[in-house]
């Protein structure tokens, strides 16, 4: 029985270099953090030799000439890791996902397919290179020995049975990945190599470090064996399709999406699962950007124009591919990508399928799938940001609201919690000060022109209506968000207006809110000090 281990040194850096081959052979340091604060989190040997230290600020690292600074890419790391697993699976069906930077594989029975173990190791190293990774490969009869040898020795290492202890002896104990506390103890003892650790008496070591001591001692001697923990496939169901030419029309795209969704749903069904969300990722053509349709919100920046991602969150787990396709189509129609699509990646988040049993006395609620479809259609019409349940945010900014996702009421249980209008036989009245006229906010707020006399509005006109101010109350001043670029200051006035007899409403947008031939009314106007203009906030009933 033989095992091979593949280890990618400087994995974080290699993952990035793999995506940008021009960096190969150069000093590279990776920075990570939250902008504007970046610090160095990884660097290859060349960069370290140039003086780069982990933890340096990006600005400081940039002062080192000849060192390429790149942001850390967890996406690339994931892909590189997947590639590493693929590398294992390309040779053996029995692969262990040992760590992000290393995999181990069982070579039993592969000789007849790929030749000797040395040849297999060479083949793995070559393939790794083809995958854009420089890897250490070690082969040994013992799985742990193979893993540690790959971590410790560069290139290809073959450890014949019986030589494990001797060969591992020169490696630092760190390759055994001991717990930090144990490593500290070993450091304190001056035990820095596997050889030194192996030389310690096992019994006395166990008195001091317990089972962990025995484990490490065996590992250092190459005497500990274990079986392979087989890697499992990713729990995310992913399907992708790279296209030779960019697709710019919705119909052919829908056809391709349908195929992918069919496959996804079939796989989900095979494992008795359904999708609770579908993530779509489109690589776009960047050389000749061309819009499919004019979107309401155009993605900004380079990364946004080369990759386009959407998440279709579902209210209940689904695996009806037709329904999913329809939802995806509506989503794409509502906000299409800005350029032709070169690659499609669809990933389904699995969940247990919905089990529902209708109660005889429960009220009918809308079918969640249909409701979702309706909401998606509406979103397509009015835009994502304009559909949902309105909520008042905690701010002084007048008229401010946000929309949150709409959820239908959850049946009778919730209704019972509502306060009854009649309690103890007495009718509740709203607290003092809450009574008053209803107020209708105009959205968007129509501009107005206001004539002032000694700072007070005297005559107004808006939406084709004109009139004199018969009573005014104000100004009511609010200002805020002074630390943001959209700081505001409004002076509001409540105005009673007597409209001219010839006054006629012209705007169609406020048809339901404004009378066609008004006589008088109570309105709220405001002066936007930043814009230097007057607007009508709304009308009192």
């Amino acid at each position, binding site marked *: 029985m033989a095992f091979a281990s593949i280890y990618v040194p400087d994995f974080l850096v290699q993952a990035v270099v793999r995506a940008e081959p021009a960096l190969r052979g150069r000093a590279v340091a990776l920075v990570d*953090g*939250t902008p*504007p*604060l*970046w*610090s160095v989190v990884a660097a290859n040997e060349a960069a370290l030799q140039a003086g780069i230290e982990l933890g340096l*600020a*990006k*600005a*400081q690292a940039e002062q080192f000439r000849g060192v390429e600074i790149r942001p850390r890419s967890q996406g690339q790391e994931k892909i590189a890791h997947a590639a590493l697993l693929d590398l294992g699976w390309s040779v053996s069906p029995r692969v262990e996902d040992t760590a992000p930077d290393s995999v181990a594989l069982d070579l039993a029975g592969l000789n007849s397919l790929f030749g000797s173990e040395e040849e297999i190791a060479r083949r793995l190293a070559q393939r790794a290179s083809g995958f854009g990774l420089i890897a250490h490969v070690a082969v040994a009869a013992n799985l742990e020995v193979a893993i540690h040898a790959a971590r410790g020795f560069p290139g290809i290492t073959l450890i014949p049975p019986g030589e494990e202890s001797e060969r591992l002896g020169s490696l630092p104990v760190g390759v055994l990945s001991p717990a930090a506390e144990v490593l500290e*103890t070993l450091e*304190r*003892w*001056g*035990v820095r190599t596997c050889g030194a650790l192996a*030389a*310690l*008496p096992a019994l*006395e070591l166990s*008195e*001091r*470090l*317990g089972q962990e001591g025995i484990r490490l001692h065996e590992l250092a001697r190459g005497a500990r064996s274990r079986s392979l923990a087989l890697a499992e496939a990713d729990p995310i169901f992913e399907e992708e399709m790279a296209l030779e030419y960019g697709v710019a029309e919705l119909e052919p795209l829908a056809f391709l999406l349908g195929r992918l969704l069919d496959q996804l749903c079939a796989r989900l069904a095979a494992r008795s699962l359904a999708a609770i969300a579908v993530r779509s990722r489109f690589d776009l053509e960047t050389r000749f950007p061309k819009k499919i349709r004019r979107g309401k919100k155009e993605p900004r920046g380079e990364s946004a124009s080369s990759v386009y991602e959407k998440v279709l969150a579902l209210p209940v787990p689904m695996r009806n591919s037709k329904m999913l396709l329809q939802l995806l189509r509506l989503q794409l129609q509502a906000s299409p990508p800005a350029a032709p699509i070169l690659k499609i990646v669809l990933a389904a988040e699995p969940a247990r399928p919905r089990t529902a049993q209708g109660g005889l006395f429960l009220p009918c609620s809308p079918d969640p799938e249909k409701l979702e479809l309706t909401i998606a259609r509406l979103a397509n019409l009015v835009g994502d940001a304009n559909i949902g349940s309105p909520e008042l*945010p*905690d*701010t*002084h900014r007048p008229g401010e609201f946000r929309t949150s996702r709409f959820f239908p009421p959850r049946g009778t249980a919730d209704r019972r919690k509502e306060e009854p209008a009649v309690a103890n036989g007495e009718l509740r009245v709203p607290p*003092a*000060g809450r009574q008053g006229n209803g107020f209708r906010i105009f959205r968007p707020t129509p501009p107005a022109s206001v004539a002032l006399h000694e700072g007070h509005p005297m005559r107004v006109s808006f939406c084709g209506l004109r009139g004199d101010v018969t009573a005014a109350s*104000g*100004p*009511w*001043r*609010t*200002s*805020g968000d*002074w*630390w*943001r*670029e959209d700081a505001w*200051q409004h*002076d509001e006035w409540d105005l009673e207006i007597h409209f001219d007899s010839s006054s006629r409403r012209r705007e169609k947008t406020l048809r339901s809110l404004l009378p066609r031939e008004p006589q008088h009314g109570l309105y709220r106007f405001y002066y936007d000090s930043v814009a230097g203009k007057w607007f009508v906030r709304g009308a009192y009933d």
Partner: protein
Amino acid sequence: MYIELHARSAFSFLEGASLPEELADVCAEHGMPALALLDRDGVYGAPRLHLAAKKSSLQAHLGAEVTSAAGWRYPMLVESRAGYRNLCGLITRMKLRARKNEGHVLPEELAAGAAGLICLTGGEEGPLAQALARGGIEAGTECVRKLCELFGRGNVYVELQRHFCRAEEARNQAALEIARKLSLPVLATNGVRHARPRQREVLDAFTCIRHHRTLATAGRLLTRNAERHLKLPAEMERLFSDLPEAVANTEMLSSRLQFTLSDLGYQFPKYPVPEGASQMHFLRARTREGLSSRYGSYNEADYERARKQIERELAVIDKLDLAGYFLIVWDIVCFCREHNILVQGRGSAANSAVCYALGITAVDPVGMELLFERFLSEERGEWPDIDLDLPSGDQRERAIQYVYERYGKLGAAMTANVITYRGRSAAREIGKVLSFEPETLDRLARLVGAWEYKDADDTLDRQFRDAGLDLRHPLIRKFFELCREVQDLPRHLGQHSGGMVICQGQLDSVVPLEPASMPGRVVVQWDKEDCADMGIVKVDLLGLGMMAVLEDSLQIIRERYGQEVDLGRLPPNDPVVYEALRKADTVGMFQIESRAQMSCLPRLRPKCFYDIVVQVAIIRPGPIVGKMVNPYLRRRQGRESVHYSHPSLEPVLARTLGVPLFQEQLLRMAMIVAGFSGGEAEELRRAMGFKRSEARMKEIEKKLRRGMGKNGIAPAAQEEIIQSIRSFALYGFPESHAASFALLAYASAYLKCHYLAAFTAAMLNNQPMGFYQPATLVKDAQRRGLKVKPIDVTCSDWPCTLENLSPQDGDGPDFAVRLGLRYAKGLRAEVAAEIVGERALRPFVSIEDLKFRVPAIQKSELTALAEIGALNFIAGKRGAAGRTRHRRDVLWQVERAARRPGPLLEAAGTSCESDEECASATPTAPTPAAASPLLPMTAEERLVADFRGTGMTVGPHPLAYHRAEMKRQGIRSASELPGLPDGTWVRVAGAVIARQRPGTAKGFVFLSLEDETGIANAIITPRLFAKDHGVVVRPSFLLVEGRLQNQDNVVSVKAERVRPLSVTRAETASHDFH
């Protein structure tokens, strides 16, 4: 005319955004004749408003917003002195029964203490608004009716505020209705929280800090608009044009408020004297006793001079009725003496022969011809200021508690220390408010104020760029602006380190008291300066590390040498001391140990005590910026003739060779050349004293120029004199203060020269203090022949102690210093105490025995001790195998001893049958530890462990291991440098023990490099610093190449190249950024 009668300042701590002075300035700009300051639960800002108001002829009304049990606040204005007394009493009571920053007033307290106070119904946080919100107009009416009952009908005003807010206007209408119904006057106010509109941003930021929110999440906690600023009277009249009586009433009410802080009613307590004797009589008697003991040994002429001086001083004291004050300070000093607490007066008190005779100070002002008027003068009309230095720590606390006990809880209190926003705290908190990430905040906070000196490239832009921040970004720009705005605004109230105020009657009728964070302490709401401004006498009981060192040294000398050293009777002009000073061999000596002092000592070459006084005073930013150091030294060395800016100054400056070095000289100069009166000179001194003095200094400068012009002083001489005075604004020592410090410097030097072991142990036991790290102190003592022994649990106590040297230790001092367990990093004091206690019963026979008998000891502590070799000698020097035990042997054992055996084995380990037996049993004889299979630590590993575990090594200096190799590389040792001629190209290397970039050195950086032979100094030019910033700042060991400067025995290397030196991984510490 509208008068603002409801304003908060930043002394409402995060609820107001302007300082009282700024409010006063804006009032003056607006032509408003008065202003009422109502801060939250206190009169914190009152003295500052009072002083600012005096200047601009503004009337400063006082009051406070006092918190009720329900959380709303009574806005109260002080009408009379009785009202002020009541307000202070109310606030004190509510504060003292609650935790810090909490507390509320009770209605019954209000009922008893509302006389002389006028209550407003308040704005949105006032009682009326809360009642209206709770129960509408009926509850509102009831609330105002209750206020009338509490304060009296004539003392309640219905307050109206207009900030363009609908809800507020609705409240105003209800308030008007109530006022009409109850026939109460209405009063317009603006509920001011900041002086100018733009400060609304600071107020919002403060709101976020107070509520632990960010601007993005604070929502409606933030202000609705920026209307709560001090508005022009015309603007307020326009706002209340429909209610002119509300505006008119402000003027009327203002005229009712007669109380100001000039009428504080403070009295210093009387000292209890025997019946029939007056305080003055008693003081005379005590002073006469002191005269004979202090001056008894003088010759007749000097004695007579002293007697006359004392009589003159007593006459002034009598005239000013200050006998009680001197007696009270004398009483504190007596308490300290009786309880063996070292005490010495410093500051201007050292100018007084009476203080010297009473034993308050230790400097003889008659012998030194010090100016008494600097301490006390008839025309100044303010209390004298006596500062007492005490050993820091418990001893000082005993003295403080004595004062509390003697004058009662409400008779004495500490002065406050108003903690204000500074660069770092402002950056951190404003950054948080703007939602910056914690790492960014750390980086920003580190950026601010790292070096004292800022060169032209240290612009904000560059600092931000270094931190990866773009100043063009609006948010970052806003961050910068806010940081600047909040500078110097109060953050919270702390406690001054030693300032105590004492009062004859109840102190809480003069200023509100509140609990300090430290249990048992009470603080007043005013800081030291405010107390002085208000004429409240204070005594500073200051903790001084060196006093503790001296006290400990004397104790050790008493116990170990069997000698009694009296600091008051040290042999004067001890040649060994002066020789050490002239050689700048002053590590550890008080005030004369810094690099700058060391580089001055060989040039000044002190020969007598007065030279030490000059030495202490000369290396200060004042003389340095005033370019007085070099002229003085040149004149002293005879290289420059002594001349005076003006012949009339000769009598004043003759003692310091024509160069002004002390504050007193500056004052006398002003009196002579510009005809300043004593009072004006005193004003000049006070302007030099504090930070808020720039404007005052400018005013005084004009006056000086005018005076000098009148006296016909030439413009060049004028400029020279002004420059001298201006530079003293940044710290200059008074001569008496320098003399007091010089005494301590001499005492520390004497003890170091004659009792090195005791002095070193005491220094090590009082760290952190002084200029050097313990590692440097130890190495310095070792170079002088002291043997320093490592920490050893078989004989080390918690503090460092002295051990008799055994005969084989050879010649040298009689004692060695044994490092104490306090230097074992990670070892808790209580565990160390247990170790020492158990060891006293019987020695530990093994690590297991130690672990068993000191069960509280943790594995990490055992490991820490083993790693530094402190457990090597348990059960003798040799292990079971008969070979010398090394640290790794012990580490090997510790790991076993620290691992708890299972219950079965644990039971087997002790052969006891009952719980009682088990409790008293020791483990069966410990299994003799077999030799460990581990290799001994190398020298390098021991060094690393020593520095990591104790911050020092008692073994060879890290560089000693590399001397041969360094010699090959042409690297000189520190001791070789003085023998080399000036201008020699040299290479030196060492552990960086200090990095300095003083504000006075124009960007030069000074490095102190220590090797096994001593300390070498290197000077880094601004150009080299800019080029090799990282190398200068980071590595622990440096190699410096450059030209040697060896002039007047002052030796340093002017660096031209600097590079890191890789000699050890040991992490030595450096004292940086001073």
